[in-house]
């Protein structure tokens, strides 16, 4: 497989064509919600993302009930938001934070992927972005949606910091 084909895996092209979670939806009044608008100033890609958080009951963890978004940009940025939407839906917030950290590690791997295959499996379709990490200029594209998710979680009040 050429580097180009490694970058544009079929999963990515499919998600770019048929994105998951596209179209902002209203959030239940008794849920927490946050919204974030992120742009990539060098290429103009943008995403507006809304997160719906189900507060924890009886001391249980808060979970992401759903993610919806609007955006425009290259296939990498749009597919990445879509894959992320699938991955984090219905997950507790600490798991979302772990996936976010894993995906950042993957993007820093310069095309090598993560050492621990078991951990890599947790990223599901998001591992398809391994090829993107070879191209420094495109890593920002893949991270755009993740930045929007993190920021909207902070804005929802569900997660405390935005580092």
């Amino acid at each position, binding site marked *: 497989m*050429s*580097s*180009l084909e490694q*970058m*544009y895996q079929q999963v990515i*092209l499919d998600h770019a*064509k048929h994105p998951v979670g596209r179209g902002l939806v209203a959030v239940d009044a008794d849920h927490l919600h946050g919204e974030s608008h992120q742009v990539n100033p*060098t*290429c*103009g*890609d*943008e995403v507006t993302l809304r997160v719906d958080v189900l507060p924890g009951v009886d001391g249980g963890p808060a979970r992401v009930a759903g993610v919806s978004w609007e955006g*425009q*940009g*290259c*296939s*990498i940025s749009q597919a990445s938001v879509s894959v992320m939407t699938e991955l984090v839906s219905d997950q507790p917030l600490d798991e979302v934070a772990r996936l976010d950290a894993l995906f950042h590690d993957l993007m820093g791997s310069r095309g090598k992927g993560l050492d621990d295959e078991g951990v890599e499996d947790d990223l599901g379709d998001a591992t398809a972005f391994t090829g993107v990490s070879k*191209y420094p200029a*495109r890593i920002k*594209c893949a991270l755009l949606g993740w930045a929007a998710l993190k920021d909207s979680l902070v804005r929802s009040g569900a997660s405390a910091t935005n580092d």
Partner: protein
Amino acid sequence: MTTTEVGTGPSGRTFTPAELVAVRADFPLLGRTVRDGKRLVYLDSAATSQKPQVVLDTEVDFYEQRNAAVHRGAHALAEEATEAFEHARQQVAALVGTDVGEIVWTPGATTGINLVATGIQHATLGRGGEAAERFRVGPGDEILVTEAEHHSNLVPWQELAARTGATLRWIPVGDDGRLDLSGLEAAGGTTGSGAGRADDDGRGGAGLINERTRVVAFAHVSNVTGAVAPVSRIVAAARRVGALTVLDACQSVPHRPVDLHALGVDFAVFSAHKTLGPTGVGALYGRRELLEALPPVTTGGSMVEVVTMEGTTFAPPPLKFEAGTQMVAQAVGFGAAADYLRELGMDAVCAHEAELATELLRIAEIPGVRVIGPATVGTLGQDAGPEAGLPDRVAAVSFVVDGVHAHDVGQVLDDAGIAVRVGHHCAQPLHRRFGIAATARASASVYTTVDEVTAFREALAGVRAFFGAE
């Protein structure tokens, strides 16, 4: 009136194949490969050009043989360094048809524009005394730009307007990517169709250039559409109302004969790095009397005459604008680049690139590809004054591909070793005007070949299939 002859090439003559081979051999970087051994096809010269060996050698020679502080010290090296530095100023002045004392070194075009805009602000604050009164702007005054500007020739004017209370207006861009001058002057009866004004009061009656206009800043050639602006017409209109003209010549000086005296602009800027020269240096041209009157912006060492604890008198221009230690080796390299271009002959460069522009524009034949900007290369008419007979667009061609984002287009081309620029090219308002977030842009320079443009077109033809966009 021209003080120095611009260009040396016989008019209309392009390079012979052998000459082009020789030109390419002058650029060491063009010999390298990219992305696993693919031959490099560099079509991003509008962002920055490659450098001929003579520029690299000149810079190295300066460091190896002449390096010393300029304009101070009486030792032999200081003399030689100063001579090289001032000789470079002559070389650059000769490229653009100005007097040597009218060329101010700047770190680049962006800094040059900021120097003029901030100098005007300082004049408005009263600096420069009576001589600088002509520069003052304030509430009720207008600064005119265009919708096609690079952010570097837009944001400094927005800032000047915000700091002084002046109003920013702009010349709109038509669907063909050219400036729409229908509302330029009131005399024609039509007011600016869609012409913008930050606090637009509808059809004010006055043209875009009117008695309140103080500054008209515009690009000679758009870095997105490649269109050449009607400089003569705009300069004539600005002169009638006593407005200053500031020409952003970044995309013209490297590609066509430019005679700033003949064009009659008051100020002009360009960057060495787009003109086959080093990074970190550029030039600001100002008509001598204006440079004399404009207050300095950066102050400190080297730009002074007498300094006492109470106050300071400034050196005459251009030194007045060159505070602190300058980018001497880069300026000397810029001089070598200017000479290199003049030896090729700007007429020949222009003719060569007009051919490349025509070849580049053939991408419009590819299904799903749309060019943003003039679709053909025409010739400027008699109303273009000193530019009559020159091409009306340059070989910088921006485009969109249906169903495929510019970033993805660029990536597929890159995989074939073809370097193009993707994004908004520092011209967000122009992209917004066309309702698009990003374009891809292919641009040529003296060393670009028709063969390379053909390779680019072939790779581009495969892009939609790769992404399954049919």
